[in-house]
């Protein structure tokens, strides 16, 4: 994956000021003046708690590209030694721990931590880290239960420390530009958002043959005690995007799901379908499955004037512009051919230039070379240097997670489910 430097990221993303977390406000914040508590010349030290697949990947990105932002990993923690060793081999200078509490107590140089533990173990290390004065980047979704998710939010507001949730589309240039098109009215009135995420894979990770007892530990994504499977691991991204489009949260969700193919003892569904409804009647329709990958993933934002296909970087107008007229001399010769020579009986006009009749839309961004994973750290680094969260950013992650869990509740109960007032965090807005 190619990485953009900060200047290129800002150039490719986009602009005009508005309130709350809009793409413009996010980009203006990143481009604007910085009130740094930590000097740009000083390195930011990060610890990674959970060095499995995702944690290893993020640690790798920081090692390779962290010099641009002045960030580095100085501590690693994992209860599973093979994972810890694997990442330590990549960053040998980092200190290693098996207990995150020991890491937080001993690694006093840390300015922040990155949490990539299994979902059910996000809350405790996040809250502990924030209470010790550290900023936290926590992978999505926030937690396994509504209560634990809310507890993280409460700690975030209480401590004032940044809590970034790993929704990288918030920093993906095509999503940022796409949202600007939505807010500027290029799509007209958006009444439906559709998303799907299809894979063809059992989602299993290899378990050492001599340690079968590690099945639930390693394949935690397949068991309800630790994860909601397709919803928390995949759907949460698109639920966050749908809320971002509407600048609102749904009023309710209904859904269904089942284990229809991978009947291997897993407890989470292998195909799900949900409908979220917003107060203006907009529907967000979502499905996910892991037994067919023909259509891959996409999120479509559909308005009466235009459509976005954000994952594939496409924008379509309902009324496409007319194709450009051919040059006068070409039209003259075409008329001569038709009127004087008549139609050639075999085949079509020999040199009639083909005018594209299929409207292929236009690209949202010219260079689609990043998915925002690295760019998230632009925001995290800024929050750490200024010792304050980016306004509006946390709420995107929070409501994305809450409505993911409510979607699971809708599937489990067969009921239409809404959000209880106790999980509404607007009361924390100052």
């Amino acid at each position, binding site marked *: 994956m190619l990485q953009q430097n900060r200047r290129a990221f800002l150039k490719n993303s986009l602009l005009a000021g508005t309130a709350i977390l809009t793409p413009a406000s996010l980009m203006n914040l990143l481009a604007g003046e910085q009130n740094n508590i930590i000097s740009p010349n000083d390195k930011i030290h990060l610890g990674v708690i959970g060095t499995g697949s995702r944690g290893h990947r993020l640690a790798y990105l920081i090692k390779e590209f962290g010099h641009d932002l002045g960030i580095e990993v100085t501590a690693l923690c994992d209860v599973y030694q093979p994972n810890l060793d694997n990442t330590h081999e990549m960053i040998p200078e980092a200190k290693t721990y098996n207990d995150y509490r020991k890491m937080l107590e001993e690694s006093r140089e840390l300015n922040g931590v990155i949490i990539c533990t299994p979902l059910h173990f996000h809350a405790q290390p996040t809250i502990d880290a924030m209470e010790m004065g550290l900023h936290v980047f926590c992978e999505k979704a926030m937690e396994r239960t509504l209560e634990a998710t809310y507890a993280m939010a409460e700690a975030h507001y209480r401590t004032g420390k940044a809590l970034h949730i790993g929704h990288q589309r918030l920093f993906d240039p095509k999503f940022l530009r796409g949202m600007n098109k939505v807010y500027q009215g290029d799509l007209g009135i958006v009444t439906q958002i559709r998303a799907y995420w299809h894979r063809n894979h059992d989602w299993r990770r290899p378990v050492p043959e001599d340690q079968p007892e590690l099945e639930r530990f390693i394949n935690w994504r397949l068991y309800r005690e630790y994860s909601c499977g397709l919803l928390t691991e995949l759907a949460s991204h698109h639920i966050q995007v749908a809320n971002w489009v509407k600048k609102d949260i749904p009023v309710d969700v209904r859904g269904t799901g089942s284990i229809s193919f991978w009947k291997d003892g897993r407890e989470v569904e292998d195909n799900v379908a949900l409908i979220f409804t917003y107060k203006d009647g907009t529907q967000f329709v979502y499905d996910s499955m892991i037994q067919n990958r023909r259509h891959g993933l996409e999120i479509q934002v559909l308005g009466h004037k235009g459509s976005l296909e954000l994952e594939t970087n496409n924008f379509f107008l309902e009324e496409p512009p007319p194709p450009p*007229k051919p*040059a*006068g*001399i*070409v*039209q*003259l010769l075409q008329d001569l051919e038709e009127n004087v020579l008549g139609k050639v009986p075999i085949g079509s006009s020999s040199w009639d230039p083909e005018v594209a009749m299929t409207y292929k839309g236009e690209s949202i961004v010219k260079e689609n070379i990043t998915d925002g994973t690295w760019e998230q750290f632009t925001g995290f680094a800024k929050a750490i240097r200024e010792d304050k969260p980016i306004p509006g950013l946390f709420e995107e992650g929070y409501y994305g997670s809450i409505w993911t869990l409510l979607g699971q509740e809708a599937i489990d109960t067969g009921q239409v489910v809404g959000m209880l007032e106790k999980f509404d965090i607007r009361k924390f807005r100052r």
Partner: protein
Amino acid sequence: MKLKSMKDIIIKGNLISRELKVLLYCYILANLVNVYAIVKYNTDWIELITWQRFIILITVIFYIVTVIIRLVIFGARKLISKTTRANTNG
């Protein structure tokens, strides 16, 4: 080919000069056709410049047509002249 006399140089020079004039007239005609097309189909005047490669192609086609026509005329004249001489001598 060895030239026989000065007369050959002048004749060759006249031939080239004449053909260049024909080519120039063809080029002017092709541009006039382009002007006509721009006016008729209400396209941009910049096409006078941007479509020059195509105009040159049309110029060559016009020139080839004039060569064919002139060859036919020349051939017809020669045939008529031969027939007339034959009738006179006969």
